[in-house]
C-alpha cells in the first residue's frame, strides 16, 4: 500500500453548459434537422447520456452544401486575404480564451484525460488557427504559383480520437486558403465541434463559411457523394478511406486522406534507455492508444530486449487509469463500446496466436469503457497484432538484430504513417530515417505535433499532408 496515494483532483465541469439537444449548424444558424431525428452522445467514462445530437440526412447535407457554396461565391472568395486572416486570428484567440471550456467538454465526450485535452488538444488546435491565420495573405509563397486558387466547397469528415484538434487541422487551412466547409464530426464526439460553431458566431464569421452537420457514416457518405462538393478531406480508417476514394473516382473531387497506421518504434542498443521507455509509453498509451500514428509496433534490438521490457513494466505500473476529469489521470476511457470490443477481439487473437500478454496492474472502474495498458512480447511479424491497427492501449513487441533488419521489419506493413527511432548516434538515426517509408519520423521522441510540420502517410496511410506549407497546398489549386 502506497502511503502517498493521490487524492482525487477533479477538474470542475461547471465551466461547460451542455444543452439537452443540439441542432445542425448551417448558414451561421442552428437549425433543426430535416430528418427530424436525434441520437444520443454519451460520456464513455460512465455511459451516461450527455446530450441528443441531430442526425443529418441527405436534405440537411444539401442545405449545408448550398450555404457553403453561397458563402464561397458571394463572400469568402471575394474577401481580401488579410481580412480572412483576421477572422482566423479571432477564432484562435477565442479558442484560447475558452480553452478550459473546450478541454472539459472534450474530456466528457471523448473520455481522454483532462491533462491531455488541457495541455495538448486544445492548445494545439488554437496553434493551428494562429499558424494558418498568418498564411492567409501570403499564399503566393505556398509554392503553387503566384495566384493559387481555393477549391471551393470542401467536405470534411473527422474522427473521434482528437475531435477538436482534427477539426482545427481541417478547418484552419481550408479557411485560410479561401475555401468554405461542410464538416461532419464523428458521431460519438460531436460536442466540441458544436461548441466551435458557437465560436464561429462569436467571431462573427460570415454565415455559411463553416457548416457543421452531425451524424453517422451515412451522413458522411451524403457529403462525399454530394455533387456540390469540390474536395474531400477525411481522417479515419483505411477501410473508409478506400470507400471514399472509390466513390469519388471519376468525379471532379480531389481528396486528402489521413488513414490508419501501424508505426514501428525502433529502439537501438545505443539509445538513451530511460527516455526511450518514456517514448514507448508516450507512443502507445497517449490518448489510450487512439492515435493513428501511435507507436504500436515496438522494435527492440534483441540484445537489450529484456532490460527495456523490465524497465517498461516498472514504468507502466505507475500509469494512472481512471476518471478522465482527474488531473492526475494518465489513461482515460476507451471512446466507445464498439472500439472496446475491437480491442478485446484483437487482444484475444494475440493470445491465441501465442504472444505473451502483460497488463499493468490497475483498477478498472465499474462503469464506462476501459482497457488496462497492455504489452505483448514474443510477437512475430505474422501475428495479427503486429499487422492490424488495434487503436487502443496495446503494444506489440518485436525484436531485431541489425539496423537493416529493423528497417526491413518496420517497412513490412501496408501502412506508412509514422515511425520512431531511438539512438544517441546521430548517423544511425539519419541512416535509419532515410530508409523508413513513413510520413513522419520522430527521432528520440514520439507523438510531437506542430502546425508548421506536415503530417501524413505513405502507402495505405493516406494521400496528401496536413500542416505546414505542404498541408496548405492540399487546399489550393496551382496557378501559373
Amino acid at each position, binding site marked *: 500500500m*502506497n502511503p*502517498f496515494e493521490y487524492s482525487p483532483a477533479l477538474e470542475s465541469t461547471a465551466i461547460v453548459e451542455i444543452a439537452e439537444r443540439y441542432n445542425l449548424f448551417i448558414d451561421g444558424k442552428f437549425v433543426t434537422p430535416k430528418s427530424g431525428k436525434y441520437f444520443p452522445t454519451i460520456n464513455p467514462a460512465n455511459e451516461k447520456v450527455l446530450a441528443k445530437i441531430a442526425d443529418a440526412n441527405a436534405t440537411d447535407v444539401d442545405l449545408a452544401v448550398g450555404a457553403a457554396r453561397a458563402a464561397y461565391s458571394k463572400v469568402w472568395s471575394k474577401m481580401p486575404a488579410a481580412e480572412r486572416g483576421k477572422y482566423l486570428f479571432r477564432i484562435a484567440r477565442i479558442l484560447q480564451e475558452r480553452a478550459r471550456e473546450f478541454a472539459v467538454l472534450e474530456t466528457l465526450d471523448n473520455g481522454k484525460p483532462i491533462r491531455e485535452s488541457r495541455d495538448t488538444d486544445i492548445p494545439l488546435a488554437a496553434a493551428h488557427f494562429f499558424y494558418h491565420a498568418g498564411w492567409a495573405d501570403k499564399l503566393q509563397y505556398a509554392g503553387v504559383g503566384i495566384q493559387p486558387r481555393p477549391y471551393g466547397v470542401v467536405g470534411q469528415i473527422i474522427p473521434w480520437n482528437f475531435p477538436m484538434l482534427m477539426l482545427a487541422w481541417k478547418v484552419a487551412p481550408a479557411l485560410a486558403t479561401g475555401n468554405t466547409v461542410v464538416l461532419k464530426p464523428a458521431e460519438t464526439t460531436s460536442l466540441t465541434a458544436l461548441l466551435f460553431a458557437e465560436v464561429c458566431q462569436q467571431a462573427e464569421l460570415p454565415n455559411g463559411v463553416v457548416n457543421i452537420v452531425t451524424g453517422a457514416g451515412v451522413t458522411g457518405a451524403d457529403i462525399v457523394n454530394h455533387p456540390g462538393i469540390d474536395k474531400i478531406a477525411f481522417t479515419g480508417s483505411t477501410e473508409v478511406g478506400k470507400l471514399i476514394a472509390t466513390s469519388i473516382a471519376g468525379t471532379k473531387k480531389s481528396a486528402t486522406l489521413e488513414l490508419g497506421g501501424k508505426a514501428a518504434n525502433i529502439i537501438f542498443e545505443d539509445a538513451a534507455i530511460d*527516455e526511450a521507455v518514456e517514448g514507448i509509453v508516450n507512443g502507445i498509451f497517449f490518448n489510450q492508444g487512439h492515435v493513428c500514428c501511435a507507436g504500436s509496433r515496438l522494435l527492440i534490438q534483441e540484445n537489450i530486449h529484456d532490460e527495456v521490457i523490465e524497465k517498461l513494466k516498472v514504468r507502466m505500473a505507475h500509469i494512472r487509469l481512471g476518471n478522465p476529469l482527474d488531473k492526475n489521470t494518465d489513461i482515460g476511457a476507451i471512446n466507445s463500446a464498439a472500439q472496446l470490443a475491437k480491442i478485446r477481439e484483437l487482444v484475444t487473437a494475440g493470445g491465441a496466436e501465442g504472444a505473451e500478454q502483460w497488463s499493468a496492474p490497475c483498477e478498472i472502474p465499474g462503469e464506462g469503457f476501459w482497457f488496462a495498458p497492455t504489452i505483448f512480447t514474443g510477437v512475430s511479424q505474422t501475428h495479427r497484432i503486429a499487422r492490424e491497427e488495434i487503436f487502443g492501449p496495446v503494444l506489440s513487441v518485436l525484436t531485431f538484430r541489425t539496423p537493416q533488419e529493423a528497417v526491413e521489419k518496420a517497412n513490412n506493413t501496408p501502412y506508412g504513417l509514422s515511425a520512431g527511432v531511438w539512438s544517441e548516434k546521430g548517423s544511425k538515426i539519419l541512416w535509419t530515417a532515410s530508409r523508413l517509408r513513413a510520413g513522419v519520423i520522430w527521432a*528520440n521522441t514520439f507523438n510531437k505535433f506542430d502546425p508548421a510540420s506536415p503530417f501524413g502517410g505513405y502507402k495505405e496511410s493516406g494521400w496528401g499532408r496536413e500542416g505546414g506549407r505542404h498541408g496548405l497546398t492540399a487546399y489550393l489549386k496551382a496557378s501559373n
Partner: protein
Amino acid sequence: MIIDASEGSLKSFLKTLPQVDEVGVHARAAMLGTRSIKTTSKAWAIDMAISMMDLTTLEGADTPGKVRAICAKAVRPDATDLSIPSVGAVCVYNDMVGVARRTLDQIGGSSIPVAAVATAFPSGRASYAVKAQDTMDAINAGAAEIDMVIDRGAFLSGRYGEVFAEIVKIKELCGDKAHLKVILETGELVTLDNVRKASYLAMLAGADFIKTSTGKVVPAASAPVVYVMLEAVRDYYSMTQTRIGVKPAGGIRTTKDAIKQLVLVNEVAGPEWLSPRLFRIGASALLNDLLLQRMKMRDGYYASPAYVTLD
C-alpha cells in the same frame, strides 16, 4: 560489482551507463510537475516533507545563537501545534556541530541527527589532509551525518579514480559513526550525463546518500537533476539490492516545490524511498511555507506570515 577502484575500471564502467536524453528528461519531469496533490494526500505530503527536512544554516555569519534557534525550530517547528513532526536533521558547518548537538540534546531533540558539511565545503578545493581533518572534527563533535563535496575539478577532467578514492576514504572515516552524503554539485557538472556518472561513482564508492548541491551554486536541485538521480538509485537498487538515499538541496522554497519533489520520488524511485531514511530535502525557508500551508489545511484560511517564526 565487477569493478575495482582503478581509473580504467571506473572509466569503462561509467561508459556502459546509458546516455541521458536531456529533452526527454525535461519533458517527463515537467509532466510530473503537473500532478495535482490535494486534500489528504497534500496533508500527508506536508508532514512527510517536514520530517524529511535537513534544516540548514550555512552562513559565514552563523553564530551559536543562530544555531540554537534553528535547533529549537527543528525539534518543534511550531510550538503551538505539537502534532507537527520534527525535521529530519539539522545541517551546519563543522564548527557549529557541538553547539547544535548539545542544544538538541537539551531540548528533547536527541533523536535528531546533526549533519555537518565537510571536505572543504563548498568548493572542495583543499588537500586531502585538510578534508580528512575537517571530517574528523565534525564526527568528533557529534555529527552523525557528513555532507561531503566531490572534487568537481577531478571529475570534469576525467580523473574518476581520484574522485572515487576520496569518497572511499571519507566513508572509512565515517565508519559506523556517521552516514555519508555525497554532494555532486550538479550546477557545476552541468550535463545530465555527468549527473548520472557522478551518481554512480558516489554510490559505488560507498555513499549512503547522493545530494544535488551545496546550495551555493545555481542551478541547484532542479527537477530534471533530481529525476536523473532518482533513476540512478532505483537502478542501483536493482543491480545491488541496496537502497541509496537522495537529497535535493538548494532552491526548494515552497510547499509546491517540496510536493513536486515527493511526486518525483514516488513515480521515479518508487514509494519505498518516501521516508526520511532515503529522502531528505536540504532547505531553510521551506519550513515556514510548509507550516503556513499546514495551518491553511487545518484552519481553512491562510494565516499571516507573522504566525510562523523567523529564526
